[in-house]
């Protein structure tokens, strides 16, 4: 299967591990990723706060290039995916909006090339038993709290999973032998940009609720599919621990990193060594178990 690949700004910077692990597991899973040449920023939250047409036009250019190549677009980051999906729906729903967008980006975009979340694509590509031979090690010992965040499965009308109780990441990890916990903060807000705003304590209290819920559910790590969630959960975990003088020690993974691990890809290639909350001990633990329970 071939997809146009839209990494987005985070995956070229703070979310580099997401990009590295995505490319690695794509190779193994036989998914060809064609990075959109000169892709432009998707506008994320800042665009649609300022101008509706701008918010729709920015992702439209990327989709248009993908459409010229006849490919759907694989989008790892939840925010880029949400914005691209909004554009695709807007163009398909109203002829008149399609015309205005085409004028603005000076390209043809008919809405045929679809914006697809990477989680959805990977979920589909591992169906069927051909994946069994590819698994090198089972992720036994991992008790993951899958954290979908606010954008990935909303709005309900275009979501690819249940907005209240999403299961796609849980099922994916089960395939690779990981255990996931049932907890109620799957789709709660991660504080987004509040940390950097005037009142960081709002963000910190939101994060604290997530960590407590995950701990109560018995999880020993968090798994996410959005660089901003990763940013807050991983980077700010220490800050929250200091603020509330408590210890969570919950490493945070991108689901692509765990899939890579299970496929036997070398941890450093997946960027597992780049986390703030040191993830290596847990990774090592899982790897050590490798001897016993080979798939």
């Amino acid at each position: 299967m071939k997809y146009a690949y839209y990494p987005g700004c985070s995956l070229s910077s703070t979310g580099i591990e997401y990009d590295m692990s995505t490319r690695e597991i794509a190779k193994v899973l036989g998914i060809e990723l064609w990075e959109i040449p000169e892709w432009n920023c998707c506008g994320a939250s800042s665009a649609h706060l300022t101008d509706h047409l701008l918010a729709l036009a920015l992702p439209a250019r990327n989709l248009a290039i993908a459409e010229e190549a006849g490919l759907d677009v694989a989008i790892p980051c939840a925010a880029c995916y949400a914005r691209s999906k909004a554009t695709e729906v807007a163009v398909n729903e109203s002829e008149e909006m399609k015309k205005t967008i085409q004028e603005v980006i000076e390209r043809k975009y008919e809405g045929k090339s679809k914006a697809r979340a990477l989680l959805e694509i990977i979920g589909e590509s591992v169906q069927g038993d051909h994946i069994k031979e590819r698994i090198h090690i089972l992720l036994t010992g991992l008790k993951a709290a899958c954290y979908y965040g606010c954008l990935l499965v909303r709005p309900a009308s275009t979501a690819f999973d249940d907005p209240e109780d999403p299961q796609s990441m849980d099922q994916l990890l089960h395939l690779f032998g990981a255990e996931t916990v049932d907890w109620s903060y799957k789709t709660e807000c991660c504080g987004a940009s509040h940390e950097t705003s005037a009142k960081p304590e709002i963000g910190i209290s939101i994060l604290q609720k997530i960590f407590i819920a995950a701990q109560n559910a018995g999880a020993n790590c968090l798994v996410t599919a959005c660089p901003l969630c990763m940013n807050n959960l991983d980077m700010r975990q220490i800050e929250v621990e200091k603020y509330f003088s408590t210890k969570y020690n919950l490493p945070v993974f991108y689901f692509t990193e765990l899939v890579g691990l299970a496929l036997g890809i070398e941890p450093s290639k997946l960027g597992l060594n780049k986390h703030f909350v040191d993830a290596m001990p847990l990774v090592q633990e899982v790897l050590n178990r490798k001897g016993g329970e080979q798939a």
Partner: protein
Amino acid sequence: MKRVGVFVCHCGTNISGTVDCAQVAEAAKDFPNVEYSIDYKYMCSEPGQEMIKKAIEEHKLNRIVVASCSPRMHEPTFQNCVERAGLNPYYVEMANIREHCSWVHPNEKEGATEKAIDLVRMAVAKAVRNQPLQKTTIPVTDRALVIGGGIAGIQAALDLANAGHVVDIVEREPSIGGKMAQIDKTFPTLDCSACILTPKMVDAAAHPNINLLTYSEIEKVDGFVGNFDVTIRQKARSIKMDVCTGCGICMEKCPVKVDSEFELGLAKRRAIYTPFPQAIPNKPVIDREHCTYFLRGKCGICSKLCPAGAVDYTQQDELLTRRYGAIIVATGFELFDYSVYGEYGYGKYPDVITGLQFERLINASGPTMGKLQRPSDKKEPKNIVIINCVGSRDEAKGKSYCSRTCCMYSAKHASLIRDKIKDSNVYVFYMDMRTPGKGYEEFYDRSREQYGTQYIRGRVSKIYPLNDKLIVRGEDTLLSQPVEVEADLVILATAMVAQPDADKLAQKIGIGYDKDNFYTEAHPKLAPVETHTQGVYLAGACQGPKDIPDSVAQASAAAAKACGLLSKPEILTEPIVTEVDEKTCAGCGTCLLICPYKAIDLKTLTERIAGEIVERKVATVNEGLCQGCGACTVACRSGSIYLKHYTDEQILAEVNALCL
């Protein structure tokens, strides 16, 4: 020989102000078949009508054309006038030269007069072709059927019975009482629901004119107003009603325990059961799906223990067909299935219950004998959250309409809890408080001020369990900040929806229903309890969400309407109905597809054709059902079915007259 009289009315100056009535009358003289033509100031007045009568005698007229106002206004007047002069009322034709002519062409005098002449010419052409029509009578069987034994059905039946009519109540459950029997107190007076309901149930059971057909369903409805042939399926109770004394021994000893529908899953019942203690008839029923005897042929304890020997496993469903003059549909409502809401836990959390389940918990004859306790751990709840508009006013996942009653019964629940558990905190999440009835606003004020219920205007976005509590996250739009309540119990005020099989019953009876499967009334303001099908009336929540006072009011209204119908041995039917020319009808059945009233059927005709006895199918119209819309006449290619008073020839005559 057709002799037409034309009478042009001035209507004071309403018509003559623009139309030259004398010229119209003059012009009408040389229309074909016109014998007499006159214009006069007020045709509809007493002298005007006298003039018509005199002209009929003098000139032996047998067709009358009145050029005046709209027939929707004075057609009956002139029809009666002509009838008094001994002429068939359907020989009258009106030309609307006021609303459609003089009033709308004030400064085109010449054009208006010419138009008036044209309209009179059309009316004359039609009148000449009009046939005498007689209003036919159809017999009315003096017996009413009430479908549904809830408060609405019971009230309607009592009113009809007290008016001296025989009434059958058909109730699907083993006992009458409906949803009201499950309710603890009723707003706004907080008087006990059973106390005001059970007496009426007893009256209904005891009333000589009322027959209760419980544990029965409607199988088929044929016929038409005054003559509905209804087939009722009396499901086998496996109990001989006449022998059973209702002592209840069987119910104690039956080994099988099953979720009680009446208790909404909060308590169990036996395989042989009565839904609730005050059930009427207070005789049990065997639930054959769960009774061991019926499943594996063993047990039979109840029949052994029954002192009166009333248990009879061999009983079968019985089909009973009776003829009724009128039908009152009072099948009530069902609660919205809130499991579509992931926000409230998809129905997984035991301590999230519906308003009706709460009514059972707090009801003295309920599973907990009125002691409010959490279904999960039976503890007494302290913090209770009530959420309004669950499923109502929500086009995305629920129903678009407001269910009218939830605000009031949520206020009632809050007051009851606060009254029962003094140190409890009750939070009600609402969007708008709707208190339309008498004493309703005061009741809401009392629940807030006197009972101390805390009303939070905002939606609940999520409920999730934390240890043994339920965290209710919502928003207070008045304080514009998020709100979180650690609740012990959450009560959802779910929407009122139509019964799941409401559309099937509607199709059986032949009445309309809307997109939410509530039955459609003939006219929302002018005929709220009637339906488009003559003789079928509506009462209670089956017509739309409503509370007990409105249901009872509608029940009495429907009973009054039914009395109006049943009080007469026969009723007159409108003669403008269709008729079939059996000689040319080929029995193709296309008209059957068109008729909205199922008034047309195919019958077999035996006749001699070219020396052979032959049987063939032809259409036949049931004059009682046909409302005279005429849609079938257009579908009939050979013109074999025609609408009296609006036949093809009559309408063509008008079209031809238009262009002479």
